[in-house]
């Protein structure tokens, strides 16, 4: 947590903050788009602000919007959000070694704020967990400084986007920017043939099963794609790809 003096008084905190700086404009631009897209897809300003302040996960926010607008049941929206967020589960397995010396609520706070870019920068800075107390605290301070700037640029730009959205006519269809954003993230995950297969199968299945009630086509598509890929894996073991 960036509000703890034990962290923000350390040099590593400032270094983490500075290391994030080159990424901040990109995060801000993406946040701005997300803010505009939320309102332009039919969410109220209050809901869009609540989502920005609480959820802090661009891809699951954007994936939830069409489902919210279509009136899908809560569990389908939450399950989809969790699936989109599963990459963080992989990160958490890695970060565990750096955080286990802290009490649980502090670990979960750090977890909440650590998004993709912070994880990548942190692991690049510290390939190995610290062996002394001072080293461990320094690493956590770096993490906190880093995610403070990530969080600040994301929240600030998203709120600005929510504010500006009403100035843009709805005919422009700017909600589509959110879909393009998800498409870009999807491309960034397409790092192996098996993952491209998973994407193709899920996309086709979601369209074929579109008329299922309760937006269940999303859940069915994910299940079909994952089961099919696990089956293909078993028949023909593919080289492992890091998440």
């Amino acid at each position, binding site marked *: 947590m960036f509000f703890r003096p034990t962290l923000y008084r350390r040099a590593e905190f400032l270094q983490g903050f500075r290391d994030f700086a080159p990424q901040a404009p990109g995060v801000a631009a993406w946040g701005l788009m997300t803010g505009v897209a939320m309102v332009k897809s039919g969410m109220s300003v209050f809901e869009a602000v609540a989502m920005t302040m609480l959820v802090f996960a661009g891809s699951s926010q954007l994936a939830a919007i069409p489902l919210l607008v279509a009136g899908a049941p809560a569990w389908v929206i939450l399950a989809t959000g969790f699936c989109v967020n599963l990459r963080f589960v992989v990160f958490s397995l890695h970060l565990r070694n750096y955080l286990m010396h802290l009490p649980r609520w502090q670990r979960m706070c750090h977890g909440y704020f650590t998004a993709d870019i912070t994880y990548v920068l942190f692991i690049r800075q510290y390939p190995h967990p610290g062996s002394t107390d001072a080293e461990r605290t320094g690493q956590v301070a770096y993490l906190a400084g880093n995610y403070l700037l990530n969080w600040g640029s994301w929240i600030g730009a998203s709120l600005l986007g929510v504010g500006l959205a009403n100035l843009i006519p709805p005919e422009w269809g700017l909600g589509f920017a959110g879909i393009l954003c998800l498409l870009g993230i999807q491309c960034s995950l397409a790092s192996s043939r098996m993952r491209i297969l998973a994407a193709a199968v899920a996309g086709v299945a979601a369209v074929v099963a579109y008329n299922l009630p309760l937006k269940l086509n999303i859940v069915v*598509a994910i299940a079909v794609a994952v089961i099919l890929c696990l089956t293909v894996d078993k028949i023909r073991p593919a080289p492992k790809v890091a998440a």
Partner: protein
Amino acid sequence: MNGIDFWTLGVIVGLAVVTVVARSFFFISSQSWQLPDWAQRGLQYAPIAALSAVVIPEIITVQGELVSTWQDARLYAAAAGVAAYFWRRGVLTTILVGMAVYLPLRLGLGW
């Protein structure tokens, strides 16, 4: 969806809990533990499958029916966005190039 809707707010709070649980997944418990092998391999495929399941219908269907015309701005915007991603490897480039194709087709030609 105007004004305050408590169901939507509940879903938003739920999504915030999902963020915390997913990002802290392996360090919520103090015990050391591991997922079964099939679940670990499933983690490789579920995120891209979930994104695809949401994104593809938003690009190629209208009210649940496959698009029946080529005069749809979304098709060209998505194709341009994917090409832009593999050109520059950036999500922001995908959005900007995609919208640069989308807006003229939509506003200029009414697609």
